[in-house]
């Protein structure tokens, strides 16, 4: 295995990681503010993919322009899920939140399967065979680069939302000390609703951007739910910067694992990394807080 192959794998991994990062940031936002293990996050991403698929099919517009549709629909969907279901649960009902999100994930996946069937779909943007040469024999696949660039821009936007806006500050306050936030005049329900909706929208947009480069099928989200959990833990306690960094790291680690040991070990390495970090540095690699 040459160094060139390794560098190429790392570049590809970085591009994948950019999309992982967006999925992970969405979950980190939700996890930080609500401390829920959202088993439906991958299903939300899958919905974003199907929404874009339908929108592209109906209008013929490129998926790279359709991602705001997926984001908007999933934002509303997230808000509905929050007000209709999650906000009705008593605080601290961990078990029930998990049951609820598992149920929700099953409903989304099966509903999509009923409407669209279990077939695999692939959206051809016409860019798929375009590769951009980087010199030294390295190259990148065009649709990945476009998706990565948009994902990066949205990630920065998400970061600014959490860091600079009043709602983002309130969300971080809730994440840090849930008990003190309402005493500071924060409307916890409203901020949680917005955070959940934004997190869901991030998953939806990630799905839209993944559509040009990934197969589409009803259970496509399952593996992303797991990866998003890994990112959130690696990134540390609801830190969205941490989750984004973890997404990039995960993409590269998976790509290199695939190169040296084969594709089938990529997810194993993810989980081993996850267990190691949980055991030895439960605050996350990039976090400072203790879990």
């Amino acid at each position, binding site marked *: 295995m040459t160094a060139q192959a390794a560098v190429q794998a790392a570049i590809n991994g970085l591009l994948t990681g950019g999309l992982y990062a967006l999925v992970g940031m969405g979950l980190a936002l939700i*996890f930080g503010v609500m*401390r*829920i*293990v959202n088993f439906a996050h991958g299903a939300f991403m899958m919905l974003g993919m199907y929404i874009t698929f339908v929108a592209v099919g109906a209008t013929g517009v490129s998926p790279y322009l359709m991602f705001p549709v997926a984001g908007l629909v999933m934002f509303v969907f997230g808000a509905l899920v929050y007000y209709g*279901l999650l906000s*009705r*649960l*008593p605080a601290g*009902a*961990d*078990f*029930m939140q*998990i*049951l*609820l999100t*598992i*149920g*929700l*994930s*099953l*409903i989304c*996946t*099966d*509903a999509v*399967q*009923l409407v669209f069937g279990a077939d695999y779909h692939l959206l051809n943007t016409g860019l798929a065979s375009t590769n951009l040469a980087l010199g030294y024999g390295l190259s990148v696949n065009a649709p990945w680069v476009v998706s990565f660039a948009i994902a990066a821009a949205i990630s920065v936007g998400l970061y600014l939302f959490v860091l600079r806006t009043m709602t983002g500050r309130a969300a971080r306050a809730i994440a840090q000390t849930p008990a003190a936030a309402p005493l500071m005049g924060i409307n916890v329900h409203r901020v949680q609703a917005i955070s959940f909706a934004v997190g869901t929208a991030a998953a939806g947009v990630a799905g839209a951007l993944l559509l040009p480069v990934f197969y589409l099928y009803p259970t496509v989200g*399952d593996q992303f739910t*797991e990866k998003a*959990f*890994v990112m959130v*833990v690696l990134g540390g306690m609801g830190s969205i910067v941490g989750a984004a960094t973890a997404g990039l790291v995960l993409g590269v680690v998976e790509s290199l694992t695939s190169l040296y040991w*084969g594709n*089938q*070990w990529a*997810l*194993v390495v993810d*989980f*081993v990394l*996850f*267990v190691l970090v*949980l*055991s030895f540095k*439960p605050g996350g690699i990039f976090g400072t807080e203790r*879990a």
Partner: protein
Amino acid sequence: MTRSHALAAAAFAGALLVPFVVRSDYTLQVLFRLFLFSALGLAWNLVGGYAGQLSLGHSAYFGAGAYGLALSTRLGLPAWPSVGVGILVAMLFALVIGGVSFRLRGPYFALATIACAEILRLSAKNLTGLTGGDVGAAVPALFSGQVVRSFYWSAVLLASLAAAATLAVTRSRFGYYLMAIREDEDTALSVGIDTAKTKLAALLISAALTAVAGSLYASLFLYIVPDQVFGLDISNEVAIVAMLGGVGTIAGPIVGALILETASELFKNVFLEAHLLIYGGLLVFVVLFLPDGIVGTIVRRRTLARRRAKPPRAPDHAAA
């Protein structure tokens, strides 16, 4: 012998007699599943219900039982001792997984258990030389003649064993330790309970029972693949059975299995492809309207009604 003892004994005897009335193999298989998941729910309940540790990776022990049986017979061991090997492997897994994950709390614990179970599932898929990977592994038959009946009876026995174990645990000092950990781990630690050891002991019992269920399940199918026995679906279903019925009660997992298995069997036949949709809807319904689980909600209502019927004693008022 109290009324509930008599009731339990009658239910046990009744369950054993079922195969003499029910002749259809299909119905018996559904009932086998029902008792198998009762046993699994009860086993999970020791860790998830009484100790309050939300394990979402019990497929690790289920799969250990299934593959333990399949692989040890390949080495020439007879079928039943191979079930024992499965139990030992599951307990070994429990030691490692417990050692790693019990240091974590809340959602982190749940995530760690998922990760461990997934590592096992993916390894079982990838280590084709050992497990056969996705091609699968043959599992020896545990019974010859009257096969479905025998499986049914063993599931009933396993569920009864799990219920008896739960009863014994709840009445022991060990059981109170577990519940103390559930209510407040720091306080439990501060009064001198070795929380790490206590949780691990509960997990070992739970893993052993789960492994036997895994062996039975595998042997009924005679053939297993990693996704089937190590999958997240098994982990989730085991936890859902207990949560649906009501965690931390003995009747809960049994009622949960009764409802979930009946419902999913009905849904499969009636709603066909929409069965997961309905199943998911059922979960959401239970969460919203029966947040303590079915048995949990009944118990709470009854306690409330009793309190209302009996006016509080005078000293309570005086104290207030």
